């Protein structure tokens, strides 16, 4: 699956050493970079962007960043690609909506309530699906997403097919900072974990779950932890979204197309990396917005095509391809030639 085709264009623009050094730099100054990005994100409202279309777009970009990165925790880092993450989103949205309208709870409390419900749901849900692998896992998560959607559609407490309308909502700027805050927090958490053994184990599960078990890791425990973490962030995002959007219904809350969108974002940016899903989210969301305004109705067609192209042509995504490119030199400098010449003659045993 290596990207031997990341050829001419990249090579002519940047040398692999430059890319390698950039990665090094980012690695060494990661925390500073995160802080800088957080501050940069916090600035636009300070400079006057307090409402309107562009602020909404930025807020949604942060939102998708959270969703894509959350998906990636389980999909990219742990190797369990879920097609049903939006279930957490929807539940978060509905619980918040119900708490705010029916129980007249304040927004912050409602969100906390939603988070609790989502975590419990994730634990139960995880017990069921995390024992499955590959195809079965993916489809099971999709099944749960759709089943949950159907249930929401049929119950009175969730407002049936029309959902719930929320009238008394905080101003847009609150959501801007909320989504930004959750995104920064999530980036920090995911980055930190990726440097610890917890993160290593997740990657090990992705690469070879049986070997990880044989090495002494209780993979169920790790998978569940990752799953709940992803659910938590997704649920928080969903919780805020209901209010942000002023209404929520089964279609928007459990949006299967969004689920594919966020997978595409993670994939395009580069799964299994911290920056990848965020970059992918920002990039793809912007493109889709542009298409939506210029060619109404075609944005999902674009999404479908974008997914196809990425999967076939660039499965490693932006960050992944760059990383492959950066480490090329290194491999050939050491080992590459020596390795190729020394070992690849299979030994035919003299006896049995």
């Amino acid at each position: 699956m290596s990207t031997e085709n990341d050829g001419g264009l990249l090579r002519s623009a940047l040398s692999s050493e430059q890319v390698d050094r950039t990665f090094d730099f980012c690695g060494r100054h990661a925390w500073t970079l995160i802080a800088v990005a957080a501050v940069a994100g916090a600035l636009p409202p300070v400079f006057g962007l307090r409402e309107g279309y562009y602020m909404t777009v930025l807020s949604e970009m942060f939102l998708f960043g959270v969703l894509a990165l959350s998906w990636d925790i389980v999909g990219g880092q742990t190797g369990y690609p879920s097609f049903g993450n939006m279930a957490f989103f929807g539940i978060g949205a509905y619980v918040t909506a119900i708490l705010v309208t029916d129980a007249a709870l304040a927004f912050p409390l409602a969100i906390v309530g939603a988070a609790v419900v989502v975590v419990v749901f994730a634990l139960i849900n995880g017990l069921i699906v995390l024992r499955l692998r590959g195809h079965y896992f993916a489809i099971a998560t999709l099944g749960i997403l759709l089943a949950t959607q159907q249930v929401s559609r049929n119950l009175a407490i969730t407002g049936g097919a029309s959902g719930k309308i929320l009238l008394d909502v905080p101003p847009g700027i609150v959501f801007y900072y909320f989504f930004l805050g959750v995104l920064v927090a999530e980036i920090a958490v995911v980055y930190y974990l990726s440097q610890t053994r917890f993160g290593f184990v997740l990657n090990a599960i992705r690469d070879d779950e049986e070997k990880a078990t044989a090495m002494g890791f209780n993979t169920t425990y790790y998978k569940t932890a990752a799953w709940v973490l992803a659910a938590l962030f997704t649920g928080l995002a969903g919780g805020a979204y209901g209010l942000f959007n002023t209404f929520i219904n089964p279609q928007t809350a459990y949006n299967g197309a969004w689920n594919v969108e966020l997978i595409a974002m993670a994939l395009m940016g580069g799964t299994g990396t911290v920056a990848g899903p965020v970059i992918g989210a920002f990039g793809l969301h912007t493109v889709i917005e542009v298409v939506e305004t210029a060619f109404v109705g075609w944005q999902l067609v674009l999404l479908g095509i974008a997914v196809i192209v990425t999967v076939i042509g660039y499965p490693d995504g932006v960050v992944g391809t760059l990383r492959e490119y950066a480490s090329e030199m290194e491999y050939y400098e050491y080992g590459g030639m020596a390795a190729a010449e020394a070992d690849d003659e299979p030994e035919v045993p003299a006896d049995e």
Partner: protein
Amino acid sequence: MSDSTATPRAEAETVLRTDGITKRFGGLTAVDDVSVAVNEGEIVGLIGPNGAGKSTLFNCVTGRLTADEGAVFLQGEDVTRWPEYRIARAGLGRMFQETRVFGGMTVRKNLLLAAQEGGANVSGLLRRPDDSLRARTTELLEYVDLGGLATTQAGRLSFGQQKLLEFAMELMAEPDLLLMDEPAGGINPSMLENLIDYIQTANSEEEATIFLIEHNMEFVMEIADRIYVLAHGERIASGTPAEIQNDQRVLDAYLGRE
């Protein structure tokens, strides 16, 4: 079906003992009442024709399979029904026939992951690997002549290099007992020499106790202190390499006369 006269050193501690392990798959009895023992500091070989049940026995020991009858004792504790990860955590390391490493991670990460210290407690997991750990990974990489490849993706290594990495990972973990499944498979003679060297050094310097399955007779005879022979799921012989080489039953089994 009686054993040879050589007995394991009674004073040394028995790290692994299996007691009448039997494992069936449908109508086939893959392992039939097999008892073996491995003592501290030994290198014990497990040989036999293809289909003799060697890998199945290994799987019963590691917990990937559960024996239908019999028991497995690790350091005196009955681990027969323990889940695989728990047995591994208790000090049992395993190397795979097809050589498995974590291809998407760097070589260094593979090694860092292999270190068992910190156990399962949460704080250990959430701490970043400290410098002494990193130093040890560098040390081990140098030891198996893979130094310089620390930041390479493990999946890019050649088969032989991956085998060495897998071995280094086990050394990192410092298991009480290391199970090796056909370690000599698929590598050229010069690397085989190196591997024998590494294994013997690990055994003498670090008291590594090793139990290995192997088809390469020269390799086994050179490296093992004692050997068990399985055929058709049954243990048909045990003893020192010299004794095994002269055992008629063993020859018959391999030449198909059983």
